């Protein structure tokens, strides 16, 4: 079966997840097409991050199904996938960018090793080639190549975040999960990172699910948007449509809360 661009890459159907009595994600369904960027927005505690973890980090779900179409065109069900297959997916076809780069990086080893780790995990055994690849990616995410042997703990927050993105992109994944990638960065660094992300997403035709509470980030990056409130997806549509003409009361509240400069 060949890969068909007219079929969704990821389809989520009736996903629910509770922590004890707290319902974090409640019956969420959506589809993600190849090359599409979907922003998941909503206030703190609305279940955005839990949704992302259920999809991309192996958090067990209570109900619902998630189908992902692999590069070879075969469809797999994520929630029942066995651990080795899931880890392989995460190393080869997926990327996960954490809000805090320290969660996604190995701070004890150099930047080059951080970028090279995925390559080595999928069997690269040539030091020179791994290093060249790492240097190439450092340049692409605008980190000075001379810092390749420095540990990420000596990097600034923005550099760490860019390094984390490079580390995920090195095996050219098809789908990236991003959890507030610009959180905790100051505004100018945020702008630069968003610029970079937008460029990379276009260039590599990545599909992205990006969780953010910042509607400006959603407007800049995403094609479609999903608004979440108390674990439910209350509105799903084109980004500019939702931002300019929100239908649901909560979306209206969210949009009206944007600071007007």
């Amino acid at each position, binding site marked *: 079966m060949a890969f068909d661009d007219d079929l969704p890459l990821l389809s989520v159907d009736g996903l629910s997840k509770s922590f004890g009595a707290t319902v974090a994600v409640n019956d969420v369904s959506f589809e993600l097409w190849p090359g599409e960027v979907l922003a998941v927005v909503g206030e703190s505690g609305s279940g955005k991050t839990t949704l992302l973890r259920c999809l991309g980090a192996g958090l067990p779900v209570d109900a619902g199904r998630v189908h992902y179409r692999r590069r070879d065109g075969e469809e797999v069900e994520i929630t029942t996938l066995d651990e080795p297959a899931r880890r392989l997916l995460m190393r080869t076809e997926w990327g996960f960018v954490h809000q805090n780069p320290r969660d996604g990086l190995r701070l004890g080893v150099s930047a080059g090793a951080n970028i090279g780790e995925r390559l*080595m995990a999928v069997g690269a055994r040539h030091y020179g080639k791994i290093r060249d690849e790492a240097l190439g990616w450092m340049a692409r995410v605008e980190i000075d190549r001379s810092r390749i042997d420095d540990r990420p703990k000596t990097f600034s927050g923005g550099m760490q975040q860019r390094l984390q993105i490079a580390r995920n992109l090195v095996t050219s994944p098809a789908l990236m999960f991003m959890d507030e990638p610009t959180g905790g960065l100051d505004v100018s660094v945020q702008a630069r990172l968003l610029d970079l992300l937008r460029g990379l997403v276009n260039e590599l035709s990545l599909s992205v699910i990006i969780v953010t509470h910042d509607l400006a980030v959603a407007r800049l990056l995403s094609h479609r948007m999903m608004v979440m409130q108390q674990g439910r997806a209350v509105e799903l549509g084109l980004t500019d449509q939702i931002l300019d003409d929100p239908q649901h009361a909560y979306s209206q509240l969210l949009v009206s809360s944007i600071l007007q400069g």
Partner: protein
Amino acid sequence: MTGDLNAPPMDGGGDNASTCRDDTAREIAASSAKEAKSTWCASHASRLDGYNFAYLDEQTKRMIRRAILKAVAIPGYQVPFASRDMPLPYGWGTGGIQVTAACIGPEDVLKVIDQGSDDTTNAISIRAFFQRTTNVDVTEQTADATIIQTRHRIPETPLSDGQIFVYQVPIPEPLRWLEPRETESRKMHALVDYGMMHVKLYEDIARLGRISTSYDYPVLVNDRYVMAPSPTPKFDNPKMDNCSALQLFGAGREKRIYAIPPYTKVVSLDFEDHPFEVQKWDQVCALCGADNSYLDEVIIDDQGGRMFTCSDSDYCAARRAKGFRGPALEQVPKSFWRNKEED
């Protein structure tokens, strides 16, 4: 049993036979009890009073043998076992002596080495321990031994069929310094998720221009498990590959046993453009002139004088007995080597 006044109070052989559930185990226990008793009678004067053969009780030995069997069946896999307190501190070879105690029989000939040498503290005390609790014959010659317990070296003389080679292991988990969570490192072994091992080697090359790990150099056993070969120098890694002897690893504090069965493939991890290499020296052994053995640097006076000698004392002595002489032999104070020469 009750009438046998010679039987030591803790001799588990006889009592054990009545509690064994399966026939084979009962047979083994019975025969080992017979052997133990005959040895006991023969060597009443020299074997330590009040202890079972090889110190451990028979149930413990069974438990350890089971772990060893499992380890042999899954080369390189770390089998948990109920490690006992031994009469020496953790880090001195508690795992190794438990494995040796579970394997040793009255007919065995034991050799114990510590950093290649038969006459350092650790080697002497463990050898004395087994002499007193089993009264087996001991030797310093690699070829004569049936069981060799080692700390940090594999002898230069190739091991042969039928020998059991027991390593003392401080940290059995090769992923320990890369992944602190034991739950996660076990999962990584289960899923053959070994990318991190190469990250470590990458770091070595990035910082120092070469793989600087010189001991406890990680190996891949039987194309499946990454294994820590205990802190032997990487010089010894090639000897583990396709070795004729059975290699057993015991980690007492960490409560793990693992094994390499005879003639098993053992590959040291490396990069295509930075292949695995062993240490080299630009001189030969000062005493025996060997150019193919692992050399120790020995300080010989307080004037900065030093020399390089074989770390394997048996190998060095055997060469000297055959008439080989190292370049520096005449310059060394006579007292340093006289005893060995006269042996």
